[in-house]
């Protein structure tokens, strides 16, 4: 055993054990760690935003008489705080509307291109797809999976006739997808636990060589 000498490693280890204590039952140590985490995270975020965004991007240039139009942007941004004054709280709609308009305008076309058009293109099977039989086989499976799954979620028509078997195949693809997601989720949760144990056993107790 080679115990850590860094006091911050000890703080992190004690906090980790406090959070793990929840697995036994709810207790004050867990609650203290939880509240501390929320407080420290917010403090870190606010401090960093002030020093790294507001000071260099707004306060410094305006203080030196440059980019004075930023004052207008700052005033509009500050309207978010009117949420706390009931009489003028309606003013908060102005920055929200600007931000929504900007965000939607910027992302709409690009999201459609990246999330729909490129994805649909990837399901198109051409002669070139079969240059390699394995790639061709997988392309066909993907095509069948996409068509059947979309058919399963087609709620405007009763599932009978040809729609019934296609929907049934769609359910199978959906179930396989859920299974893969569940398997990956288990792997992720175990990984997070392993990460904490690597810290406790390695960085703190020095048991991992």
């Amino acid at each position, binding site marked *: 055993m080679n115990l850590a000498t860094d006091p911050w490693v000890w703080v992190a280890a004690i906090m980790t054990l406090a959070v793990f204590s929840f697995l036994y039952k709810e207790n004050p140590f867990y609650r203290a760690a939880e509240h501390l985490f929320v407080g420290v995270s917010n403090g870190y975020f606010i401090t960093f935003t002030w020093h790294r965004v507001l000071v260099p991007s707004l306060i410094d240039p305006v203080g030196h008489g440059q980019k004075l139009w930023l004052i207008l942007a700052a005033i509009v941004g500050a309207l978010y705080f009117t949420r706390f004054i009931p009489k003028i709280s309606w003013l908060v709609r102005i920055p929200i509307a600007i931000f929504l308009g900007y965000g939607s305008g910027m992302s709409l076309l690009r999201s459609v291109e990246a999330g729909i058009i490129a994805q649909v293109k990837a399901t198109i099977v051409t002669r070139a797809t079969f240059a390699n039989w394995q790639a061709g086989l997988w392309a066909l499976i993907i095509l069948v999976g996409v068509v059947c799954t979309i058919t399963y979620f087609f709620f405007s028509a009763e599932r009978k006739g040809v729609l019934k078997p296609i929907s049934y195949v769609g359910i199978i693809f959906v179930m396989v997808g859920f299974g893969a997601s569940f398997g*990956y989720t288990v792997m992720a949760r175990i*990984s*997070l636990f*392993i990460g904490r144990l690597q810290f406790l056993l390695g960085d703190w107790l020095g048991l991992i060589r």
Partner: protein
Amino acid sequence: MAASGSAGRKGFWERLQRIDRRWIYLVIWLVVMVPLIKPFPIKPVASPPVQQMFSYIDSMPEDKALIISVDYSPDTQAELHPMTLALLRHAFATDRRVGLVATTVYGLGLGEDALREVKREFDSVATRHEDSVISGEDFIFWGWTTPLLTMMLGMGERITNVFPVDYYGARTESLPMTRHVKNYNDVGILVSVAGSSMPISWVAYAQTQFGLRIGCGTTAVSAADYYTYLNSGQFTGMLAGMRGAAEYEQLTREKMDRLGMTWRVRNRGTEAMSSQTAAHIAIILFIVVGNIGYFATRRRKS
């Protein structure tokens, strides 16, 4: 006798259905802890998405930089931090210029931690100044800024406009690496190591608008959703969860050995694979035994 045996079996399965979950936690704790202290050998074999990403970075033109976007926070550090470390080792071992950027404030400390660790490894064996890893020449840690959209799109025009100063406070315009890396045209690939949907945002803004290649390092939870982007070619490669990190670590280790860089580093992804395997076997057994118990008790009730 037969009746009491049957009652005993019935009692066992019913007790199993009502077992206190804390016993399961204890078993998982032991199953994960013991292989960490006494590991059994596992050599990760790279899956095609990992190999794809490694091969691209390994063979991209020398004048192109690698950008790593640290898009995760401490809650997913266990899975994703080993990926950042492995990517940095690979890049510095093959003399690639690296740009680091964070899309969340919480990624800043993690990015700096990764840079410091890998820089220390390379510097400790460097015999000449040129062999060490130098901030501003071999890498720039641009840091974080907001809003996200403006950052992603602005970097395609001119990175120094988006980040006038780097994370350490140096003027980016004056850094030697800036002469070679001005915007996405000078970037070979951007790898988004993310515990959120950030890789898709990089695809939507940086790839759709500027044609930038995107690689993805993701938590295992998100991996199933991202395979569609891999299949469509929008991701050049993908590292999924701790296993993906271990596979990339293995490829990097082999590459560094070939280059004569044989110093020992702590590969946390590879180190975790024994525990990961043992835990998966335990969970599969839990599922099988739980289902047998469920059907056994249901049949008796009916």
